[in-house]
């Protein structure tokens, strides 16, 4: 890829990641939410793959990090559900405080948003690796 594309992607990728994290964290007060943030994070990885090739992308964001992100996201989701069941409410009920001081805290929704955001981002990046990842180490 040419020098212009590499320079511009190097500048853009951190901004796309920050936008993705903002979408996840303020999903309960603005348009956005968990899925929008997750797919935007995987879009940043796709931009890195298109500009720099698969081996450089696998060095920074390796298979093990992606697998760990997936598994921790799913485990966090299920653990929150089981804790809600142990506390007497239904599975995946809302048991954290909802309104605190100046801002809305939305209970268990923020934790679930974080889990799903990390999960979906790692998931779609892993899809790209499995589809087109010929080179680099496994």
């Amino acid at each position: 890829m040419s020098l212009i594309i590499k320079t511009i992607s190097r500048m853009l990728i951190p901004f796309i990641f920050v936008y993705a994290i903002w979408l996840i964290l303020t999903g309960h007060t603005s348009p956005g939410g968990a899925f929008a943030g997750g797919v935007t994070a995987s879009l940043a990885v796709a931009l890195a793959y298109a500009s720099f090739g698969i081996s450089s992308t696998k060095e920074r964001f390796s298979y093990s990090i992606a697998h760990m992100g997936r598994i921790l996201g799913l485990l966090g989701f299920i653990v929150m559900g089981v804790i809600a069941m142990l506390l007497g409410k239904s599975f995946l009920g809302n048991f954290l405080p909802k309104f605190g001081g100046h801002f809305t805290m939305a209970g268990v929704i923020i934790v679930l948003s974080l889990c799903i955001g990390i999960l979906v981002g790692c998931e779609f990046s892993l899809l790209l690796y499995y589809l087109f990842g010929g080179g680099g180490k496994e």
Partner: protein
Amino acid sequence: MNLPYLASLALFSIGLYCILAKKDLFKVIYGICLMEFSVNLFLISLGFVHGGEVPIRPAGAVVVDPLPQAMILTAIVIEFATTVLLISVAIRLFKQYDDTDMSKIRRLRG
């Protein structure tokens, strides 16, 4: 006049014709994508309210129905996973038979 319903129906028929009448694997994948687009359009047209507002911190009483929108959000993400699975099958078939034409793939068996 139920124009959005008819438009999504027309889109569905175009996708269905693309699956039935074309013999290249990737054209079949495009047809499946068009059918999924038409279903999303239909679902969101079901929930639209004239003069309604966005269901985020609603100020008034007339709000667009939020339940179909949540269902479509799930459907869009699953549709991407399905499309990627179909493309991976097409790439595998190409590696085996060196062609993506469905009539030729049938003839090269054995």
